């Protein structure tokens, strides 16, 4: 069963005083996400990720095209009992405590008193909010607000979760906790659709990824296939090789890096790895490891959108890690 299907989903914004300039934020997005999948929508800032999520929750309306979640049209309000949304940098009511805020959200789902107390108790414990449940949200740190945001998304025990940059603003510990949470949701057969511009998060969590750039889906596929299909080279780590061995190996290596006694060789051709290993054995050199160098998401992205975009992406990643 499909958890999400978008068909030619397009969004144009009209800009300028006379609203006569048109900026296409999302261009004919066709996407299918199976139930139970963890899907990562990747792309630099301004790629159209948040636009996609806002369209799905009808916070903005499509210029053309349509989408279905769990087989239902987006304007079907009953759908919202089965799905959840975590906005990017979630906002909360500062005068409320975490408990009051989550209670308010739970009331919107019509949960009965007992059910509400049980569910909120679970979530508060699960997201490490127990100690500060009665503190006004205005006094919460960015990371804690993110946890509250995640908690409000889980109140209705949704089948499909849409998370916009869920690791944004979190410290390394917080990121790890969110990663573990997403993996737990996956074990529970929930569908998680999240946007991110941080590749490491996608590599750890996703079954499939889609790359969005300038509003267009540049590529989409299973992460395993993307990473495994392309073994680009083999790296060999040696300890204390003689000058003769190194001279023999050099023609097969695309790069040689020496760090003290250790040498890292990269052999690009699979057929030449065997020959390099024979030279190493013959020269009685200590081989520490031989690893295939797999294609990374970054390589995939480079192939899909070009080097300029990768640089842009990297700079955003650096900024993000500094936060």
């Amino acid at each position, binding site marked *: 069963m499909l958890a999400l299907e978008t068909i030619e989903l397009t969004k144009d914004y009209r800009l300028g005083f006379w609203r006569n300039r048109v900026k296409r934020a999302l261009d004919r997005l066709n996407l299918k996400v199976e139930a139970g999948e963890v899907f990562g929508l990747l792309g630099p800032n301004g790629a159209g990720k948040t636009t996609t999520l806002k369209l799905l*929750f009808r916070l903005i309306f499509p210029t053309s095209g349509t989408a279905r979640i769990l087989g239902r049209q987006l304007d079907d*309000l009953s759908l919202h009992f089965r799905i959840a949304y975590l906005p990017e940098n*979630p906002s909360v009511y500062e*005068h409320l405590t975490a408990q009051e805020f989550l209670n308010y959200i739970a009331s*919107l789902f019509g949960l009965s008193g007992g059910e509400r107390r049980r569910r909120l108790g679970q979530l508060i414990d699960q997201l490490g909010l127990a100690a500060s449940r009665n503190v006004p949200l205005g006094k919460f740190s960015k990371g804690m607000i993110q946890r509250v945001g995640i908690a*409000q998304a889980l109140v209705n025990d949704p089948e499909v979760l849409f998370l916009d940059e869920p690791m944004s603003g979190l410290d390394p510990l917080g990121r790890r906790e969110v990663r573990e949470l997403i993996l737990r949701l996956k074990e529970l057969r929930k569908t998680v659709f999240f946007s991110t511009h941080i590749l490491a998060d996608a590599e750890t969590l996703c079954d499939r990824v889609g790359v969005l750039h300038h509003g267009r889906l540049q590529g989409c596929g299973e992460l395993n296939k993307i990473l495994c299909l392309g073994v680009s080279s083999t790296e060999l780590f040696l300890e204390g090789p003689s000058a003769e061995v190194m001279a023999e190996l050099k023609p097969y290596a695309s790069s040689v890096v020496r760090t003290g006694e250790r040498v890292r060789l990269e052999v690009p051709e699979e057929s030449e790895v065997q020959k390099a290993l024979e030279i190493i054995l013959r020269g009685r050199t200590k081989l520490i490891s031989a690893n295939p160098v797999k294609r990374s998401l970054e390589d995939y992205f480079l192939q899909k959108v070009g080097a300029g975009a990768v640089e842009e992406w990297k700079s955003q990643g650096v900024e993000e890690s500094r936060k």
Partner: protein
Amino acid sequence: MRVATIAFHTFKESVRQKVLYNLVAFALLLIGAAVLFGSISVGVEQIILINLGLTSISVFGLLIAIFIGIDLVSKEIDRRTIYNILSKPVSRPEFILGKYLGLLLTLLVNTAIMTLGFYAALFYQKRALRLDDLVFLGAVYFILLQLAMVVGIAVVFSCISTPVLSAVYTFCLYVIGNFSSDLRAFGQETRSALLGTVSDVLYYCLPNFGDFNVITQVAHAERIPGYLWLGNSLYALLYIAILLGMAVLIFEEREFR
């Protein structure tokens, strides 16, 4: 149920605003001061107290309605808290209605407090309260109807404009609404068909608050005629329904970028 949840949340949010307490405190202070003014006005002590007391309830009610009403929707949009609500099984009309009723509840509670203050001042002055004094509740009811309309206007502007501009527009409309009968009379006086039609259209479109002001009548112990009770109630109900309908139509089309 969801409307009630949003209304209760809005009420809770409103009563935590400090500006509300300041306004209610000022209103009570002014009602208290009315006793003092009355004591230096020989023969008309009670009329002064009733006029000043009920006018205080009206003015401060208006300030509360505008100050809190304009923020009602725009704050949710500016702070993006609305994403949390509209991503839940809450329709946009439910959201607007819940917000409106929440603020109405706030006004009801505040007006009740101010009215209690008013009757306390009246008791202090007369040393007794009679059944006839309940007539002042009629004036308070009409004030509440006016405030309910003002909140409706504030909600409409809050959906399309910034809080400051919404406050200005709402206040202007309130002032014009108090003189809409004069506006119509002016149009008829000019003897120009065009101006007459324009003033007629404005008269029917703009809120007519003139008929809601019965403070002077009750201060002079005049009874409020039955047709005014019914007419004002129906007029306010219809006007509020139109305002909320407009707010919903605007809000349904609104995008939250």
